[in-house]
C-alpha cells in the first residue's frame, strides 16, 4: 500500500512551480474581469512578478539530492539551474512582447499567462525523475506553446505555424508514450532510479526499442535532424517573441529532460545509445549550419542556427559524464542571453505592417541605429563563439567535456561546424556595416521594455563571458551530485 504524502519535502519541491502557476491563474482571471484595455504593457507586470517569484523561490529552496513524491520530482541543482534558465527565457520574451504585440495588432491578453504556463511545464521537465512526470511536463509546455504559436489569429503564417507545430507535436507524443510503455514493460517501472537498477536484468531488445522511440520523441522536441522539419516553419511563422521562447526555453527544457533521462536512468546502456546520439548530434549540427548558410530571412536563419546549437548540446550529452551535463547547463544559460538578444533585435527593426526580416533590411543598419547594430554584432559574435563573449566559453567547455570523454572526432566536427556558422553570422554583420541602407531611415523608437530586454541580454552575454566560473561550477557540481 502506497501512502499518499504531501509533506514539507513535497511542498518544497513544487513551491517555485506553484508561484508561477498561481500567478498565471490570477493574471488570467484578472484579464477576464478587467475592462480597461488602455495600457498594453500592464498585464506584463503581474507576469514578471510571477517570473521573479519563481526564480527567488528556486534559489531559496533548492537542495542537492532532494526529491519528493516518492522520488518522481526533484528540486536539486540541475532542476534549479533549469528553472532559472527557463524563467529567464520566459521573462525576457515577456519583456519584448507588449510593444511588439501592439505593433502587429495582437490584442490577446492571454498571451502573458500562457507564457507562464509554458514556463511551468519547462520547470516540470527540468525536475522530472520519472517518465510520466517528464511526459506531463512536455505536454504542459507544448499545449501552451501550440496556442502561443497561433496567437496572431489574423495572420495566416501564424496559424500555419500553430497547425504544423500541433500536428507534429501530437505525433511525437504518441512515440514518447509508446517508448515509455515499452520501458515500463521491460523494467517494471517508470522511475529513473528503478529503471537504472532494473536495466541489467531487462530484455535488451525491448529496452532498446523503447529507448529508440524516446530518442525520436525527444529529438523532435529539441529539433534534432532528422526530426527538425517543423522547426524553421514554426520559428518563422510564430510571432517573434514566441519564437524566442521556443528557441531558448523549450529547447533548454527538452535538452535537460534528455540529459537527465540518458545520463541518470539509461547510464548502464551508455555504450548503446551513445552511438545513436553521436550520429544525431553530427547530423543536427551539420545540416543546421549548412542550411542556415542558404537563408535570406534572418528569423529563418536563426531557426537553423538554433537547430545547429541543439546539435552542439546533444554532442555533450553523448559524453554521458557529469562534466558534459554541466557544460550543457552552462551553454543553455549562455544561449539564453545571446539568442534572446538576437530575437530582440529582430523585433526592434519591425514596424507596423512590415517585419523587416530579410538580410537586405539590415543593410546599413549601423548608420541608422548604431546602438542596436552594435548589440546585434555582440550577439552574432557570441553565437559564433568569439572570445571573450559567453558563447565562446560555453562552446569551449562543451568541447572540453567531449574530448575528455574520448570523442575526439565529435569535437573536431563541432569545431568545423563553428567555422561554417561564422559565415552566416558574420554575413549579417557585413550587411549592417559594409552596405548602404536600402530604404529611408527608420524613425521607430523601440519600446522601453524592449530596451530593458536588450540591455539584460547584452550584460549577460558580456558578464558571463568574462566571469563564467560561478554558474559553471554550480552546473558541474549539480550533475556530479546526481550520481
Amino acid at each position, binding site marked *: 500500500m502506497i501512502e499518499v504524502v504531501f509533506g514539507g519535502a513535497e511542498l518544497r519541491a513544487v513551491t517555485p512551480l506553484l508561484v508561477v502557476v498561481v500567478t498565471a491563474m490570477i493574471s488570467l482571471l484578472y484579464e477576464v474581469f478587467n475592462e480597461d484595455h488602455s495600457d498594453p504593457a500592464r498585464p506584463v507586470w503581474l507576469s514578471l512578478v510571477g517570473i521573479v517569484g519563481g526564480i527567488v523561490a528556486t534559489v531559496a529552496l533548492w537542495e542537492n539530492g532532494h526529491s519528493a513524491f516518492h522520488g518522481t520530482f526533484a528540486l536539486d541543482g540541475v532542476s534549479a539551474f533549469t528553472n532559472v534558465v527557463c524563467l529567464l527565457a520566459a521573462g525576457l520574451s515577456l519583456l519584448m512582447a507588449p510593444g511588439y504585440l501592439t505593433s502587429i495588432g495582437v490584442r490577446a491578453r492571454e498571451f502573458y499567462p500562457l507564457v507562464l504556463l509554458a514556463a511551468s511545464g519547462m520547470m516540470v521537465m527540468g525536475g522530472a525523475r520519472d517518465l510520466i512526470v517528464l511526459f506531463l511536463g512536455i505536454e504542459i509546455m507544448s499545449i501552451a506553446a*501550440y*496556442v502561443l504559436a497561433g496567437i496572431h489569429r489574423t495572420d495566416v*503564417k501564424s496559424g500555419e505555424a500553430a497547425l504544423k507545430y500541433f*500536428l507534429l507535436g501530437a505525433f511525437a507524443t504518441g512515440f514518447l508514450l*509508446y517508448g515509455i510503455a*515499452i520501458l515500463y514493460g521491460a523494467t517494471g517501472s517508470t522511475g529513473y532510479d528503478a529503471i537504472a537498477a532494473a536495466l541489467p536484468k531487462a530484455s535488451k531488445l525491448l529496452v532498446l526499442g523503447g529507448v529508440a522511440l524516446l530518442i525520436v520523441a525527444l529529438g523532435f522536441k529539441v529539433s534534432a535532424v532528422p526530426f527538425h522539419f517543423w522547426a524553421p516553419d514554426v520559428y*518563422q511563422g510564430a510571432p517573434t517573441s514566441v519564437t524566442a521562447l521556443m528557441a531558448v526555453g523549450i529547447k533548454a527544457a527538452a535538452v535537460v529532460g534528455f540529459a537527465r533521462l540518458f545520463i541518470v536512468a539509461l547510464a548502464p546502456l551508455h555504450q548503446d545509445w551513445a552511438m545513436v546520439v553521436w550520429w544525431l548530434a553530427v547530423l543536427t549540427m551539420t545540416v543546421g549550419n549548412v542550411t542556415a548558410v542558404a537563408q535570406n530571412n534572418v528569423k529563418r536563419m536563426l531557426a537553423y542556427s538554433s537547430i545547429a546549437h541543439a546539435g552542439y548540446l546533444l554532442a555533450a550529452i553523448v559524453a554521458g559524464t557529469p562534466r558534459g551535463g554541466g557544460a550543457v547547463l552552462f551553454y543553455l544559460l549562455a544561449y539564453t542571453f545571446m539568442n534572446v538578444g538576437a530575437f530582440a533585435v529582430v523585433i526592434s527593426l519591425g514596424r507596423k505592417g512590415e517585419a523587416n526580416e530579410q538580410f537586405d533590411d539590415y543593410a546599413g543598419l549601423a548608420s541608422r541605429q548604431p546602438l542596436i547594430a552594435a548589440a546585434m554584432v555582440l550577439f552574432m559574435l557570441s553565437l559564433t563563439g568569439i572570445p571573450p563573449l559567453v558563447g565562446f566559453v560555453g562552446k569551449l567547455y562543451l568541447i572540453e567535456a567531449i574530448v575528455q570523454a574520448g570523442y575526439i572526432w565529435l569535437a573536431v566536427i563541432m569545431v568545423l561546424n563553428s567555422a561554417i556558422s561564422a559565415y552566416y553570422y558574420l554575413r549579417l554583420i557585413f550587411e549592417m556595416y559594409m552596405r548602404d541602407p536600402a530604404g529611408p531611415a527608420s524613425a521607430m523608437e523601440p519600446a522601453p521594455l524592449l530596451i530593458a530586454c536588450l540591455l539584460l541580454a547584452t550584460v549577460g552575454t558580456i558578464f558571463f563571458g568574462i566571469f563564467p566560473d560561478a554558474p559553471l561550477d554550480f552546473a558541474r557540481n549539480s550533475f556530479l551530485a546526481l550520481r
Partner: protein
Amino acid sequence: MNVPVENYLVLAALIFAIGCAGVLTRRNFIVILMSVELMLNAVNLTFVALSRQLVSMDGQMIVFFVMTVAAAEVAVGLAIFLAIYSQRRTVNADEISLLRW
C-alpha cells in the same frame, strides 16, 4: 478464458502502426488528429495489459494521465483547426503551405 498478454501487446502494436500510417498518409487535419488518437489509445491498451502482467497499478494510473492530456490536446487542436478554417476555408494539409513544409 485467459487471453495471454502477448495478444494484447501485438494488437496494440498493430493499432499503433495503423495510427502512425494514418498520420503519414492522410492529408485532412481531422483525420490526422484521429490517427494520433488511435496511437494514444494503442499506448493505453499496452499500459493496461502490461499493468496486469506486472501486477502493478502504475500502468493503469498512467492511462488516466494519458487520457486527460489527450483531451486537452484535442481541445487545443480543434481550436487551431477552426482558426485555420475561418482563414482559409480548408482542412487539407496540402493547401497549407505558405511556409515550405
